[in-house]
């Protein structure tokens, strides 16, 4: 077999799953990384997906998407209650079918499941620093490498978010007179990596137009920064995406309105009010 024959799978989600699995492996190599909730999350997520598809008599969309959501939840959700992981998975998948505006779901499923659980009980939390730092560097390289190599990872939202986030962080470090290692330490966060490549990048839950997507990414970064340094909130990026989700249908709608106006310049002229 020649090198050219080695093709990446056509569905980019396979690649995402491979990446998430390696993420999980790195997590497991760190100490105190729980895995007991993984089967509960996967079963609940896949079950919910199948149930809703049958109940609403929708065409079968496959199970790759709930698998990705399950990985995201496994990696981010921490709890000491047995019933919470399946609840998070159920809420995540159910949100895809129930929270829809004009035929499109607009909240990121894993993000919604996580935030809903954190709102409901104190027994759900995220541990943003649990991966340890050395191995994370490898994952960053891998993530950015995939981005260059495969279109599925080449998300303008990810880049716009990461760019604005780094800029904001760097500005703060400079303002406080801190040194470069502080910035590096702040960026070496497992949840930031996961968020950038697998949460905010989801094309289904970001605005359709490019300009709107970039604006959305900037909004999430700015809100997260404000949450962290003004409100001193925990897990600011995750909450920022949760809070910004309603912007998605709004931006889509405003873009449609703008586009429709552009298409009919003459009509606009004729409609000028006359006495």
């Amino acid at each position, binding site marked *: 077999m020649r090198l050219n024959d080695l093709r990446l799978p056509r569905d980019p989600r396979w690649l995402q799953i491979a990446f998430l699995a390696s993420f999980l492996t790195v997590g497991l190599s*760190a*100490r*105190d990384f729980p895995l007991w909730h993984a089967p509960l999350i996967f079963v609940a997520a896949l079950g919910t997906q199948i149930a809703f598809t049958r109940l609403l008599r929708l065409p079968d969309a496959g199970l790759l998407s709930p698998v990705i959501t399950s990985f995201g939840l496994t990696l981010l959700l*921490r*709890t*000491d209650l047995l019933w919470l992981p399946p609840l998070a998975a159920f809420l995540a998948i159910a949100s895809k079918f129930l929270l829809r505006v004009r035929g499109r779901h607009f909240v990121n499923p894993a993000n919604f499941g996580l935030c809903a659980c954190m709102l409901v*009980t*104190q*027994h*759900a*939390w995220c*541990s*943003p*620093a*649990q*991966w*340890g*730092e*050395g191995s994370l560097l490898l994952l960053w390289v891998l993530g950015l490498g995939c981005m260059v190599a495969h279109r599925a990872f080449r998300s303008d939202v990810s880049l716009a978010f990461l760019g604005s986030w780094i800029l904001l962080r760097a500005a703060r470090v400079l*303002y*406080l*007179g*801190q*040194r470069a*290692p*502080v910035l*590096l*330490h*702040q960026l070496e*966060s497992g949840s930031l990596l996961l968020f950038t490549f697998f949460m905010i990048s989801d094309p289904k839950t970001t605005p359709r137009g490019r300009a709107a997507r970039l604006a959305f990414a900037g909004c999430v970064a700015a809100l997260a920064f404000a949450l962290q340094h003004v*409100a*001193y909130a*925990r897990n600011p990026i995750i909450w920022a995406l949760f809070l910004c989700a309603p912007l998605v249908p709004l931006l889509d709608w405003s873009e449609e309105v703008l586009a429709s106006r552009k298409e009919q310049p003459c009509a606009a002229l004729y409609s000028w009010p006359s006495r």
Partner: protein
Amino acid sequence: MRRALLLAFALTAAAPRAHAFCGFFVGKADAQLFNKSSQVALVRDGDRTVLTMSNDYQGPLSEFALVVPVPSVLTREQIHIGDRKLLERLDAYSSPRLVEYTDPDPCSLREHAVFPMSMPMAAGSMRSREMTDHAKAMGVTIEAAYTVGEYDILLLSATQSEGLEAWLRESGYRIPAHASRALAPYIKQDMKFFVAKVNLKEQKKAGFQELRPIQIAYESPRFMLPIRLGMANADGPQDLIIYALTRNGRVESSNYQTVKMPSDAEVPEFVQKEFGEFYKAAFARTWKQHAQRAVVTEYFWNMGWCDPCAAPPLQSAELRELGVFWLDAASAPARLRGPAGMPLTLTRLHVRYDAEHFPEDLMFQETGDQQNFQGRYVLNHPFRGEMKCDAREQYLTSVRERRRREATTLAALTGWSAEKIRQRMGPDAPAHVDPWWKTLWK
């Protein structure tokens, strides 16, 4: 000029009976100033925080000083001088423990006894107006000045770090050259500085031999400990033990990896005599395994009960003294309450930090985790009585096997060489087995 020592917040090596080091140490080079342990109790619920700071300062009292960034100017009532015993009690209660089990006579099937055994690891000369005017000229404002217990306390705000550094230096605190760099981020975040030094007169009056811990109560949305000041002039890693007392669950760091100390390991019997050495080695190994960047959890448990209890549980008056404000008398643990517990979790975190590996202050979050964890190491004493039955041989084989396992566990935990462990185990050491190739061509 009066020499002073400016220590930042948590200055000291608290590794069990650990090495000395100098925090934001500004004494003379030859000063034999040892801070053996720095311990902090951090009581927090919502934004309300009570911080108790203690260290084993050993040098001349006239040279002691402490600088802590605080979120606001504290009033006199927000400052209290506590009792050293409080932290000693917390230490004894939560320290890693050794438990021992004695095998029953294999020839009779009596219940075996369990003996929990604890082994605590333990861990102004200027006149005031002149001083104020002078400070103002340097961009430093003395917001308040109190004498509390044996301490003279100033609350400073500053507009620029160089001014603050210069002012501290001129006021008799010997500060390292790059101190302003460490001070600057706190000034930019509009934090104030809590500066304490010993008032020798008051100290004599009070009659205490050791410096008592300073307690401060404040409200702040930031759940953090400023450790960066202490690194400005340190020449090696420093140890800090944090006892976090919270209402809902375990506390972990939100900006550094938090790992649990390996626990529940069975170790050879000789460890009983060298538990301190053993734990130091085991901690150092865990610390290194996580690239010297992790916060190590040594204990978390609901304060309503313990199993085994390394020390008697803290009484309600002691908890109150530590600042646990949300417990009323009825819910306090006059006696152990059983697994139902009480709304109070104690988390013991051990941090060994230096400037390179901990570039930022420690940030924390309270999780809802209400499981329990303790650093617990298990000794198994074999049955040494006379055995007269067929089970004897089988039992002795199992003991040998267990000792081999224990030796391997010990090596993995501490990084000690097999040779060293065999030596310490003496006659109990597992029989040496030649590698397979030794007999291959014989």
